[in-house]
C-alpha cells in the first residue's frame, strides 16, 4: 500500500510536468497552428541553465530562477520574431510543413549545441541534475521525496495561474477567441501577431521553468528534448488539441502509466509506453479521448 502511494506520487509529479509541457504546447498549437517541435528542447535548456546558474555559479536558487526567466524571455521573443512570425501568413499546408521543419531544425541544432557545449565547457559527463538536497517527508511508513512534492506544488500553481489568465484577463479571453474562431477574432479587431508573441513567450518561459524544477527530481541529458516533445505531444493528442483541463488528466495518466511500467516490466520499456499510447490514440481516436475542448 505504502509502495503504491509512493508510485502514485512519483507518477503524478512526472505526469504533472508532462501536463505542464503539454499545456503550453496545446495553447500555442490551438491558437497559432504552429507546432513547436523544439518545445522539449527549451525544457532541457531550462534545466541546463538552472544547473549552470545554481551549481556552477553558486547563485541562490530563487535568483537563478529569476535570471533564467529573463534569459528565456529574450530567447522566446527571438523565437517568435524569427520563426513564428515568418510562418504565420502561409497557407495551411505550407504552415504545417514549415513549422514542423523549421522548429525541428531549431530543436536539432539547439540539442547538439547543448550536448557539445556541455561536454566541452562544463562537464565531460553530459547529465545534469540539481544539487539541492530535498527533505524527505515521512508519513507513517510512507517516504515521500520532497523534491517531487515541490514539483507537484509548482505544477498546481502554474496551472492555476494559466487558468486564471485564460478566464479572467482580456488577453486570455483573446487567446480563447483566437483558438475558437480565428475569423471572428480578426473581425473584432484583435491583433493575432501581438497575441502569438505573448502566448509563445509565456509558453516558452513556463516550459523552461518547468525544466528547472524537473532537474530537482530527475537528472536530464542534453538529448532528451525531442523525445520529451513527443511525450508532451502524446498528452496533447490524448487530451484533444486545445482541451486544457483534459491535458492535466492525460498528463497524470501518462505519468502514472510510465512509472507503473518501469516498476512492473522494467525501465527499458517505459519509453515505449508513451509511443504506443500516442500511436494507438492517433489511430483509434485522433480527436483525443475527451473530444475537442474549448478552454
Amino acid at each position: 500500500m505504502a509502495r503504491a502511494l509512493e508510485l502514485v506520487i512519483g507518477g503524478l509529479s512526472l505526469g504533472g510536468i508532462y501536463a505542464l509541457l503539454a499545456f503550453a504546447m496545446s495553447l500555442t498549437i490551438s491558437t497559432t497552428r504552429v507546432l513547436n517541435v523544439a518545445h522539449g528542447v527549451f525544457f532541457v535548456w531550462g534545466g541546463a541553465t538552472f544547473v549552470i546558474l545554481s551549481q556552477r555559479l553558486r547563485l541562490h536558487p530563487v535568483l537563478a530562477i529569476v535570471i533564467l526567466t529573463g534569459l528565456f524571455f529574450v530567447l522566446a521573443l527571438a523565437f517568435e520574431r524569427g520563426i513564428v512570425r515568418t510562418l504565420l501568413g502561409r497557407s495551411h499546408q505550407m504552415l504545417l510543413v514549415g513549422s514542423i521543419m523549421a522548429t525541428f531544425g531549431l530543436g536539432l541544432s539547439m540539442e547538439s549545441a547543448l550536448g557539445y557545449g556541455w561536454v566541452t565547457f562544463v562537464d565531460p559527463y553530459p547529465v545534469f541534475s540539481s544539487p539541492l538536497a530535498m527533505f524527505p517527508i515521512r508519513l507513517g511508513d510512507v517516504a515521500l521525496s520532497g523534491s517531487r512534492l515541490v514539483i507537484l506544488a509548482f505544477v498546481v500553481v502554474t496551472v492555476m495561474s494559466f487558468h486564471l489568465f485564460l478566464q479572467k484577463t482580456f488577453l486570455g479571453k483573446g487567446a480563447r477567441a483566437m483558438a475558437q474562431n480565428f475569423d471572428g477574432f480578426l473581425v473584432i479587431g484583435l491583433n493575432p501577431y501581438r497575441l502569438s508573441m505573448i502566448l509563445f513567450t509565456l509558453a516558452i518561459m513556463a516550459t523552461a521553468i518547468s525544466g528547472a524544477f524537473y532537474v530537482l527530481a530527475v537528472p536530464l541529458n542534453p538529448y532528451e528534448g525531442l523525445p520529451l516533445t513527443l511525450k508532451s505531444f502524446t498528452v496533447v493528442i490524448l487530451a484533444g488539441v486545445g482541451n486544457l483541463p483534459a491535458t492535466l488528466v492525460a498528463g497524470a495518466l501518462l505519468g502514472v502509466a510510465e512509472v507503473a511500467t518501469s516498476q512492473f516490466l522494467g525501465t527499458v520499456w517505459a519509453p515505449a509506453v508513451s509511443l504506443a499510447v500516442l500511436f494507438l490514440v492517433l489511430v483509434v481516436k485522433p480527436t483525443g479521448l475527451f473530444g475537442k475542448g474549448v478552454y
Partner: protein
Amino acid sequence: MNRRAATLTVVTIGVLAVLPPLLSSTWLLVMFLSFLWLILTANYDVLDGFLGHINLGQGAFFGLGAYVTTMMLNVAAVQALGGLALVVSALVAVVSAALFAAVMAVPLFRLKGLYFAIATLILIFLLQVFALNLGDLTGGSYGLYVPPRFFVSTFVAYYVALAVAIVSVGFNFYLSRSTLGLAFRCLKEDEEGADSIGLHPLRYKTIGLVLASVPSAAGGVLFALNAGFIDPTIALGVERSLLPPLMALLGGTGTVLGPVFGTAIIRIIETVFFHYLRLPVPSMLFFGLTLMAVALLIPAGLMRSPRVRRLSLFRAFSS
C-alpha cells in the same frame, strides 16, 4: 523530357557507372552512402511531393531492411544455403518492409497533415525500442554482426545502390508522367473530389507507401551487408527519417530532380565540411540550422525558385 535532358541524364549515369575504378576506397564509400541517401530522399518525395503527406518515417523501412537481412543471415538454416542465402535474406527483408508498409498504411492513412507526420515519426522510435529490448533476436544495444563470408564489397554495393537509386528517381519520373501519378496528385489536391470520380484514396495511398518502402528497404539491406555490423543507432538512427525531408525540401518536393539536387548539395557540404575540413562543430547543429533556413526562406525548394529556374540547365528539364 526533351532530347537535351535525355542526353544529360544518360551522360550522368554513364559517368557514375565508369567512376568506381578511378575512385579511392574512401570516395567510393562516400558515393555509395550518398546513393543510399538519394534512395531515401526520392522515396520520401513519393508521399510528400505527389500525395501531399509528410512522412517522417522513411528511415523505419531502411532500418527494417537492415535488421531483417542481418537477423536472417545469423540463422544457421539460412547460412546453409550458401550463395543463395544473400538473395533469400535480401528478398525476405524487402518483402517484410513492403508488408510492414501495407499493414501500417491502414491506420496511418486515417490521419492527415500534422497527425500523419507525428504518427510516422513514432515508427522509427517504436522499432528502436523493439531492437533494443528484444536482445535475443536483435542483439539489443550491442548490435548484430553479418557473418564475414556474406560481406558485400563497396565496389559491388556501389553498382547495386546506383541501380536502386536510378529506379527510385525513375519511379518519381514515371509518377510525373503517368496516370498513376496523376491519380496521386489528384488525391493531393482534393481527396473528396478524387474519391467521387472513383479513385479510392486508401488504395492509392497504400500503393504509394508500399512502392516507396521497397527501395528504402533495399538500401537498408545494402547498408547492412556492406557495413557488416548494425545496431539501433546506426541502422535505426532518427536522422534516417529526418535528413530525407531536409534534402527533398531543399531541392523542391514534387519535382523529379529536386531530391537529386537536394541530396547532392547536402552530401557535398557534409563531405567537405565534416570529413575534409573536419570542422569542430557537431554536424547535427549544422543540419538543424540548414533545415530551419530552408523551411523559412525557400519553402518551395530550389527547383521551384524563379532564380534557379532561369538557368539554362534547368530549363532543359522543366520543359
